[in-house]
């Protein structure tokens, strides 16, 4: 009985780097050929995505990444494999082949950093001087971590007081090699005076300003999202903090932006996000302290992060979710040490940081399945994982089990194959190999806060120009069994594998193709909720942003403005069908819902296009979150200091028939001009 005829599972003990995130392990290891075939390189062989940062196994990874406390940074030659990188490490006696180290893949192009020393250097100091026009106003920092942010856009600029973007870190930009004292460990930082300078030099030609800021350059490989009419980050930041050029109040709403590297976004699985996100969050809080010190008050920070991860773990255990908690605490301690008076303190009197996250867009994606603990014996979750033909990117499936689950087993049957047990050993991946060709990898790890993850990476079903054998498309039956603690669950999540906005269409999304799953109701309309008594293991509930499980953040779902504006309309029509919500038994609840679509047929919310003066529609909970970010910033500027879970209820419209599980504590009203274009 074999998973696939002609293939066998075997352990990858030799060529394995301990501690590598499973996506990174696959992408740098057996999945590398597929990636290399797809990566655009500069003529001089820019070594994209060939760098690993190593930290000590017993070090706190969040602290280590935040402080650039890397034992070693290894960069391979173009196309270098995990084996080559490991050989390079092994030749270095001090590092004993990587034993006792954990690794993070750096999704950076080589041009984005000068050398190892720069990557390890602490964030440089910055200067901030208050613009005129702040008298009598309460300063707030709006932070944004996104991709494709036009930092020179007119909506982020006051006509007389200049750019409100005080600091921007473009992580994927070319490092300024002429500048020995780079202020950031990779990419490039811009400050408000530099943005103003570029705009002045460009003499009204915004496209030229973007070139001067190194945001658009077609002479080098890679994507320039700001060359497209729609850019995610510009739209999101406009909703979060955009303002008319004559809005004097907005001068007190300062912006600190981080633009994530293209590889982090292009890999829609979210598997590469941790390293850059931790650095980004730390950067925003550090620069907010720079402003606070100059302003002589601890300025509140409202941070919008409109990205989500399709998978788990629940409970805020993902490293990015843990980083939010840890870095906010570190920020508060630093503020305390500075002895600054705190504006709008939190319940404990500490500096306020509000992190706003989307609930995710995969409610209808058939990417989540669940099995509750059996009354006795082992609990089994079997999913029919359909992988589409013509998928040029790897597909990922992960199972999450409680930390105290025991005896986890995995069985896999490929299309035309039979269920075969795959031996699991902690941190030692298994690969599915035939004739020397690897097409899948399975692993068990506990790196995300102790929760157990069984992870399966499957090669593309279209291997393109890689010369590698593709994985067969069709249904893969994957079964996980374990003895669960009472009340525990096994959750399976298909990671996102489609194409991000503005990228070349390569990925095709895999999903659970369960005949027992009901997509449509008796009236032929699409079902928004899981029907009661459903036989299927596939569930809409629980298809939730895997980064949003922590207690701290504000989490925002999306609703349709028109449907919610008519009292008579079915409440079931209010939420956007795709907007994610946590599992019913999850401790995490949604905070609120904000507009994500104008109506069931008019998709998206209008806000800034890439270049000043343009308006475009974009949808998803990505656009919901920043509207609440904006409302919170405005409330803080108006002197609000609310505490507790209900602290932002005042911003929301309560409603009689609240579907709290999907809409949270209430609906945020739509923005109106001049805060946003009219949606009428």
């Amino acid at each position, binding site marked *: 009985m074999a998973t696939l005829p002609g293939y066998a599972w075997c352990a990858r003990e030799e060529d394995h780097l301990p501690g590598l995130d499973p996506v990174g392990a696959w992408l740098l290891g057996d999945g590398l050929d597929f990636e290399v075939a797809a990566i*655009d390189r*500069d*003529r001089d062989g820019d070594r994209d995505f060939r760098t690993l940062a190593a930290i000590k196994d017993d070090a706190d990874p969040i602290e280590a990444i935040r402080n650039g406390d890397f034992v070693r940074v290894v960069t391979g030659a173009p196309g270098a494999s995990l084996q080559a990188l490991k050989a390079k490490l092994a030749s270095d006696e001090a590092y004993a082949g990587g034993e006792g180290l954990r690794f993070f893949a750096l999704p950076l192009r080589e041009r984005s950093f000068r050398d190892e020393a720069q990557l390890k250097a602490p964030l440089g100091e910055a200067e901030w001087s208050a613009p005129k026009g702040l008298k009598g106003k309460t300063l707030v920092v709006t932070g944004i971590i996104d991709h494709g942010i036009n930092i020179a856009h007119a909506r982020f600029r006051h006509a007389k007081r200049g750019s409100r973007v005080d600091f921007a870190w473009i992580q994927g930009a070319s490092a300024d090699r002429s500048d020995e004292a780079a202020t950031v460990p990779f990419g490039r930082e811009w400050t408000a005076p530099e943005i103003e300078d570029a705009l002045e030099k460009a003499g*009204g*030609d915004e*496209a*030229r300003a973007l*070139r001067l800021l190194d945001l658009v*350059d*077609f*002479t*080098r*490989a*890679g*994507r*320039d999202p700001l*060359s*497209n*009419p729609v850019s995610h980050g510009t739209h999101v930041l406009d909703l979060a903090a955009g303002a008319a050029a004559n809005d004097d109040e907005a001068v007190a709403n300062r912006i600190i932006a981080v633009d994530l590297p293209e590889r982090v976004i292009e890999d829609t699985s979210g598997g590469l996000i941790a390293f850059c996100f931790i650095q980004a969050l730390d950067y925003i809080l550090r620069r907010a302290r720079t402003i606070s010190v100059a302003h002589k008050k601890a300025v509140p920070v409202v941070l919008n992060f409109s990205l989500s991860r399709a998978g788990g773990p629940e409970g805020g255990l993902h490293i990015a979710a843990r980083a939010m908690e840890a870095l906010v605490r570190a920020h508060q301690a630093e503020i305390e040490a500075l002895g600054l008076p705190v504006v709008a303190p939190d319940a404990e009197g500490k500096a306020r940081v509000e992190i706003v996250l989307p609930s995710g867009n995969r409610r209808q994606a058939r990417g989540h399945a669940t099995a509750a603990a059996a009354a006795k014996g082992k609990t089994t979750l079997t999913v029919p994982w359909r992988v589409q033909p013509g998928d040029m990117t790897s597909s990922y499936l992960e199972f999450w089990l409680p930390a105290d689950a025991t005896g986890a087993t995995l069985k896999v049957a490929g299309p035309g194959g039979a269920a075969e047990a795959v031996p699991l050993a902690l941190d030692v991946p298994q690969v599915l190999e035939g004739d020397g060709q690897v097409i899948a990898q399975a692993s068990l790890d506990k790196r995300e806060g102790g929760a157990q993850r069984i992870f399966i990476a499957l090669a593309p079903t279209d291997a393109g120009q890689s010369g590698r054998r593709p994985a067969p498309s069709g249904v893969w039956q994957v079964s996980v069994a374990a003895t669960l603690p009472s009340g525990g669950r096994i959750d399976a999540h298909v990671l996102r594998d489609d194409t991000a906005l503005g990228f*070349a269409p390569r990925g095709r999304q895999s999903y659970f193709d369960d005949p027992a799953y009901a997509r449509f109701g008796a009236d032929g309309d699409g079902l928004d909720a899981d029907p009661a008594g459903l036989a299927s293991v596939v569930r809409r509930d629980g298809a939730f942003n895997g980064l949003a499980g922590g207690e701290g953040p504000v989490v925002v779902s999306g609703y349709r403005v028109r449907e919610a504006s008519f009292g008579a309309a079915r409440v079931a029509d209010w939420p956007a069908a795709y907007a994610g919500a946590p599992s019913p038994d999850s401790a995490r609840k949604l905070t609120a819902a904000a507009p994500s679509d104008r109506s069931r047929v008019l998709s998206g919310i209008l806000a800034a296009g890439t270049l000043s003066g343009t308006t475009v529609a974009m949808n998803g909970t990505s656009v919901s979150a920043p509207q609440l970010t904006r409302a919170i910033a405005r409330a803080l500027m108006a002197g609000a200091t609310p505490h507790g879970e209900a602290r932002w209820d005042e911003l929301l419209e309560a409603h009689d028939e609240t579907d709290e599980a999907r809409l949270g504590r209430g609906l945020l009203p739509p923005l109106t001009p001049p805060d946003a274009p009219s949606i009428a």
Partner: protein
Amino acid sequence: MPIATLSALAHGAHGAHGAHGAHGAHGAHGAHGAHGAHGAHGAHGAHGAHGAGVAGGSTFDGMLTGGLMIARDGLIGAWTPPTTMTPFPAGEAANLGSWGRPIRAMVIAGELASRLGYHIVADKKAPGGNLIAVSHLTVGKAGKKGIPEVSYAPFLRYTRPTDADFLAQLDIIHNYADLRADRSAEILTQADQTLAYFATVAALDGDRTKHTIELLGAAHTLAATVSQQVKHVLACIRPDRLSAQIQPMIPTPRHGALPSGHATEAFIVARVLQHLLAPVAPGEAGQLGRLLMGQAHRIATNRTVAGVHYPVDSLCGASLGLALADYMVARATKGGSVDGVVFDGQGIGNSDFFVGDVIAGDARCSSPGGQVKIGGDHALKLAKADVSVPLAWLWEKATQEWTDVAGAGA
């Protein structure tokens, strides 16, 4: 309406080709146009001035001809011949108003082309072994039998980039391919004619500003004529012949890459409009010119996005179009000095093309990389005698179309 009107005009221009079937060159263009690819064909788009089927008699049908014969027989009565006549004065520019627009276009095209000479210059240092010099023919006083003494003055000198330059430029074309989906509407509608894209900026209208459009048609023809000479001599291979991965989204035209015809034509149109409309442009100073040049840059860049041109083709074409525009305006008004261009594409490497490389505000400039050098020993001093009387007539007619707007004559 302007776009629809201009689109109709463009089709009218195609109709006009039929009427000129006897004109060999036009016939050839027609064949080219059948491929939907650009080229000199684009020049005829600007001939939109020829009018949407009003060319009067561009179509004759048998029924109508029969009807007209029978009607005459029933109408004229006995033959009573006239005894006096008022002839047209010979050699008068005003007569142009009596000729059909396609005829004026030929007269003016002949006026402009007859004063330019093309010379292939052998140069061992030039990639390909030859470069091209374009000179202005200075015409002296008429001698015996009306034949004047003539001499050439250096105006344009174009040398192609090296093989390594083209290979480096190929990377940029690949990178720009990311924008193909975004730009496809522009690319497809600009393949044949680009006038609609300037009409929206400068408020052109096929009826109200018909002479302006006719003037732009003349500019377009001049740009196409000269750029094809330069293309032919420099013979630069197209991107799709260098890499099977370029795969242009539209057919690659059947002529050399450098200079880009679209860039030459777009920049001559933008520059002539800038000259014509600067005195009456509303709004912020320099805005109209900036947007015209921006549009020309976008049209040129779209050809790179499509995969049919290197960025250096655009740089080269822009330098050529701007120089020809200044030349044409000088010959339409009162002569004066015109900066020529020495273009040497060598060393362009992987530099992209930006509009600021060739023009700053309303002043042309040499490019920062040194490939475009303006003026110097290639500056023309045009005399009154260099002014083309038919062209000046058209310029004046075009100017009068803009006297109705606020600020005119201010």
